[in-house]
């Protein structure tokens, strides 16, 4: 790749990064509502829709830098699509959902330390049910 091509490529990537930042702002503004919608579907016991919604939030959260939200949603996706090692108890699902709700309660001001502690506390229960999270 010559200098001109490299420069052109760098410019393309810089423009795309700006576009991704714009999408990240939009994602944050909808995160709370999306998790609330996921909760409603779980309460209605619509497993298929719950798995799909959890997958969507999982992939978006991973794209925009929300690692713990990503992992809890991955766990929920696996639980609702039946890919678990041990049948989950409702209490654990509720705990995971509550942790998720707290993490996204004020997405403009995320609390890294609180979210990290919360996830550490939850992790053994989640891991027992789905080993690959």
């Amino acid at each position, binding site marked *: 790749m010559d200098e001109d091509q490299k420069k052109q490529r760098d410019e393309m990537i810089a423009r795309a990064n700006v576009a991704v930042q714009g999408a990240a702002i939009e994602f944050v503004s909808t995160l709370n509502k999306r998790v609330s919608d996921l909760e409603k579907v779980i309460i209605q016991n619509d497993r298929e829709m719950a798995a*799909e919604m959890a997958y969507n939030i999982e992939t978006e959260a991973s794209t925009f830098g929300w690692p713990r939200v990503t992992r809890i949603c991955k766990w929920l996706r696996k639980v609702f699509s039946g890919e678990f090692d041990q049948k989950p108890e409702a209490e654990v699902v509720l705990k995971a959902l509550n942790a998720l709700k707290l993490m996204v309660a004020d997405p403009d001001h995320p609390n890294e330390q609180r979210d990290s502690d919360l996830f550490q506390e939850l992790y053994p229960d989640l891991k027992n049910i789905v080993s690959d999270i």
Partner: protein
Amino acid sequence: MDKIEIKDLKILIADSNLFIARTLFSILEAFGVGKIIVCETLEEAEKQYYNSEIDCIFVDFMMEDRSGLEFIKKIRTNRSSKNSPDVPIILDTGMTDRKTIIMARDAGVTEIISKPFSPEQVLQKLDNAVNNKRDFIEVEEFVGPNRRRRKDSISDWDGEKDRRRSAVKNNK
């Protein structure tokens, strides 16, 4: 084959997650891709594929209860489209376990890009899929790009001894 300029590319995005589809759209638009079509359902994507000229497809694995793979198989085996069955297909997926990768490879995907994806990865996979095409294999058990990326020259397998040669349709 001449390198295809990014401004001349026509790309189809099939993803039921409109947020991710829009993000991918923004990335490709920022690269300067000439035409980008976004489809939320496989039915819509299939219609677009059969009626428009497409240079590359991005499709999500989980779409409509994992029917994305059936869509890929259909493209690889159907001759009634404006497009060649060897059109590059990039699978974008949040699932990167071994089973998913093998299923995708066997369905005939060209490249796999795992979510989260960055603009650098999208550009690299796109360039590789469009400008660095592998030989296209059409045999009973498999239709898709050659699974071997390296073009090793192994003297014992050259010429008449190379049984793979009969299955390869060279697209160059």
